[in-house]
């Protein structure tokens, strides 16, 4: 029994570490399930020139992103996370300026970074 425990502890520890390091991909699909949908919703609002609606969805998107970040930060690259933060900041400016082209650029870039997160 003692030998079993001595062998089981390191194996369990390594399994837990691997789980933490690879959890990003899984957590994106569970905790972060609303993120891609939010991006699509903002794209639709921007295309329809519904800037107020786009701004509201963006606020919800930012809150959802902050929640997801707590979980995925351990298995993701810092640069990808910072780029998404930058996209959100620039998107806010684009929506405030009612700049369709910039808004759409930032949205698609944000979507790309989200897809690459945890890969």
């Amino acid at each position, binding site marked *: 029994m003692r030998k079993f425990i001595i062998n089981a502890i*390191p194996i369990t*520890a*390594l399994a837990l*570490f691997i789980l*933490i390091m690879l959890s990003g991909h899984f957590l994106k699909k569970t905790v972060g399930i609303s993120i891609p949908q939010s991006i699509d919703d903002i794209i639709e609002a921007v295309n329809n020139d519904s800037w107020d609606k786009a701004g509201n969805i963006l606020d919800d998107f930012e809150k959802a992103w902050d929640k997801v970040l707590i979980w995925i930060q*351990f*298995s993701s*690259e*810092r640069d990808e996370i*910072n780029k998404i933060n930058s996209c959100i900041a620039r998107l806010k400016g684009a929506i405030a300026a009612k700049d369709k082209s910039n808004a759409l650029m930032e949205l698609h870039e944000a979507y790309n970074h989200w897809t690459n997160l945890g890969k």
Partner: protein
Amino acid sequence: MNEGLVVCVRAIISFFSLLIFAKILGKEQISQLTFFDYILGITIGSIASEATVDLSSRAWPHFVGLVTWSALAYLMQLITLKWRYAAKVIEGEPTIVIMNGKIMDNVLKKMKFRISDILALLRNQGIFDLNEVDYAILEPNGSLSVLKKSEYLPLTPKDMNIPVKPAGISTELVYDGVLIEENLRQMNKDKKWLMNQLKKYGINDISEAFLVTLNDAGSLYVDKYKDDIKKVKDIGDYKGPY
């Protein structure tokens, strides 16, 4: 992103992963370190440190690197254990550099060793006169093993025909105030005997003893927590801030 927290978690992962892999690689790694083993240790340590602080990449690729290097080191160990020829090629073999008191200068040239290096290694072993040396062997880990000429070897009881009782190794009976009952049984003693012995040293309870050891010759070493030493001798040559 909470960078401090992420670094903390990655540090825990790297630390314990490195500990587990080092245990798997075993004691051979420490006792027979060759130049390559040093490089291996440095590289594995470097990968573990990057896994901790390099937030620009994920922890997973660093972990894979760590596992790969450790697995290759383990594989190399297995190969050298099972296949003698591979062991000779990879780790090298001991080389005689001084034979019958004569320096093998062609061997030194082959090993790219200077005689001054050999003299330094001899001095590290307390040998300042080459006339004392019968054999000197350069080991694969770079250390020098020396056999002195018989007339320069230290005197032993056997040389004087003095019979001596074998001392054996010391076994810890009490460690940090805690009795190790298994060791006591191994030495064919019981707690009653131990307490009787400890009473002679003014110890009435096991918890008062810091360390107690016993060897096969019956020599008991006792160290108490209370050393009755008022002030530890200061052997430093500078007063310092404390």
